[in-house]
């Protein structure tokens, strides 16, 4: 067999993943995933070091890529820039060396970063609110931006008022602080770009072209917090609806960056509407219509949304199955695969859902058994991508290798 060129390998991988995503038949079932902390564990690097030393993070990801050869790769994107986060003074986050142990995943600190009486202000001018209110609450470095006069007031001769805040010591201090943060973040981005080029040179496309969050979670995660937004469905439904309209526009704007990419995957991270989080009626009123509308708008732009349905979605399958065929990928974590396949198989590409506990605590045979079970269930119908159930942090390497090797071998379409 003649060796394939890097270009051939790149095109082959791209075609394989694109076909699967559109429920067309590739040569075999693709296998890859948003492996989060795992590449560093595999390379023997603590997550703290990976977040602080960009070259070390790249090296770890190369080691992982060379050994497992996922069809498409994420690279070091999940090793967030710790130094930039320090310089920005991100108050809403904990990470290794900053409130957490050295080898633990970073975590978001929930809070009411927008109070209940600020809905109108957000709806009227989301950018003004984000700059003048939200940013100072989230980032120590941006506390001076609370002085900002809303930019909409600069019209005509309004610009003459600029000095009232630009020259305040607080604003000046914030400008200096964000410059330092941005310079560090730019180094991190340069490292990401470098890695993408290096992976490309090995024949691997990147697995993402965009990142997004459902409209409800845009409000719930970053602005109101889980408890507050859930209560708002009952306490101030009209205000919440108005904010969700705005958030849907932000969703489309955010995800649209993926348009035109070789692999136009926009990953949509779904956070808070599973099971007990809300009733079916609340899901149908506050969550799904806005998300669905946003997803359709992205699809209209030629983007393939990959919706990461964290937790168990069995109870909502009938709603989420209502999407156009071959246009979207659903990543399943704990949702029963067979039940999901019955409702959507061959129409919506399903991705997942090898349980992480099996990858950590099981044997290679356990892993193969699970992969075989779901591959067999599809009976040769395309529209399946193999991956762990949730973003991978811990696993035994032999178990993960079994997931890759078995899928590559047993997942060939004949």
């Amino acid at each position: 067999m003649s060796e394939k060129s890097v270009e051939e390998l790149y095109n082959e991988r791209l075609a394989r993943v694109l076909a699967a995503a559109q429920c067309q038949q590739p040569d075999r079932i693709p296998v890859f995933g948003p492996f989060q902390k795992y590449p560093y564990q595999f390379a023997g690097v603590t997550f703290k070091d990976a977040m602080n030393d960009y070259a070390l993070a790249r090296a770890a990801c190369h080691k992982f890529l060379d050994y497992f050869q996922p069809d498409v790769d994420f690279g070091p994107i999940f090793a967030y820039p710790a130094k930039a986060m320090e310089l920005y003074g991100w108050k809403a986050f904990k990470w290794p060396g900053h409130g957490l142990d050295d080898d633990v995943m970073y975590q978001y600190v929930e809070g009411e970063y927008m109070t209940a009486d600020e809905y109108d202000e957000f709806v009227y001018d989301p950018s003004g609110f984000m700059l003048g209110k939200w940013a100072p609450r989230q980032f120590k470095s941006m506390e001076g931006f609370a002085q900002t006069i809303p930019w909409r007031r600069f019209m005509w001769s309004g610009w003459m008022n600029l000095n009232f805040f630009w020259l305040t010591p607080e604003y000046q201090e914030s400008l200096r602080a964000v410059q330092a943060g941005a310079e560090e973040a730019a180094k991190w981005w340069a490292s990401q770009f470098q890695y993408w080029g290096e992976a490309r040179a090995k024949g691997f496309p990147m697995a993402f072209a965009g990142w997004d969050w459902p409209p409800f979670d845009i409000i719930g995660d970053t602005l109101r917090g889980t408890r507050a937004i859930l209560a708002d469905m009952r306490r101030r439904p009209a205000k919440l609806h108005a904010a969700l309209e705005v958030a849907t526009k932000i969703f489309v704007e955010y995800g649209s960056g993926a348009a035109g990419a070789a692999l136009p995957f926009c990953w949509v991270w779904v956070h808070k509407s599973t099971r007990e989080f809300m009733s079916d009626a609340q899901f149908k009123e506050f969550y799904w219509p806005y998300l669905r509308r946003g997803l359709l708008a992205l699809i209209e732009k030629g983007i393939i949304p990959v919706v990461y349905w964290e937790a168990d979605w069995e109870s909502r399958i009938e709603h989420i199955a209502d999407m156009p065929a071959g246009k979207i990928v659903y990543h399943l974590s704990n949702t029963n695969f067979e039940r999901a396949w019955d409702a959507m198989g061959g129409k919506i590409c399903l991705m997942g859902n090898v349980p992480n506990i099996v990858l950590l605590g099981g044997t290679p045979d356990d892993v193969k058994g699970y992969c075989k079970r779901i591959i067999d269930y599809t009976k040769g119908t395309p529209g399946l991508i193999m991956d762990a159930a949730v973003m991978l942090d811990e696993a035994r390497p032999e178990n993960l290798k079994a997931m890759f090797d078995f899928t590559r071998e047993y997942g060939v379409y004949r």
Partner: protein
Amino acid sequence: MREKLIAAIADINEAEAIQLAQAMLDAGEDPQAILEAASQAMTIVGNRFDQKEYYLPELIIAGEMMKAIGDMVKPKLHGQAAPAARLGKVVIGTVAGDIHDIGKDVVSFMLDVNGFEVHDLGVDVPAAKFVEKIREVRPQIVGMSGFLTLAFDQMKRTVQAIQDAGLRDQVKIMIGGAIMDEGAARYTGADAYGADAAAAVRLAKSWVA
């Protein structure tokens, strides 16, 4: 008025519930009786959650109403009321390294309204803290919550620490969290896993029966 208060809380009529509680207090009703009515309403809320009539939004608002009424009434409480008889004691927490609290809070709430004395250690709880609290309150049940996959190993370490302290035989251990399942229960050495708060209550009741 007492029945109205119970209905207002149970039906999540927030403003009405707070007004009624204030009116009862102003009318000189026994503060302890107001608290008991609110607790009774919480049990109804718990049952409705269990029946999937209520979800997290209702639970959250009910919890906040209970707190508001408690804050309103407590300054007027004279002396300690006799604690109600409880089915058993539970020590619960989200394991070290993980700061997610929502699932754990729902389980705490449901255990509480179903008659258990709940000692909630909060989030990011080290194994040693579980051990210390078990020694102190002597619970029949320990609940460990975890949302991140790091919880698999941390739960395992916590169970081991309880074992090493010689306390493993005295407690039943349950785990919960979106990614947990029977396999995780076996891996961590827990006695059982519960898929949701209702399952946690069923387990707890079966263990103290």
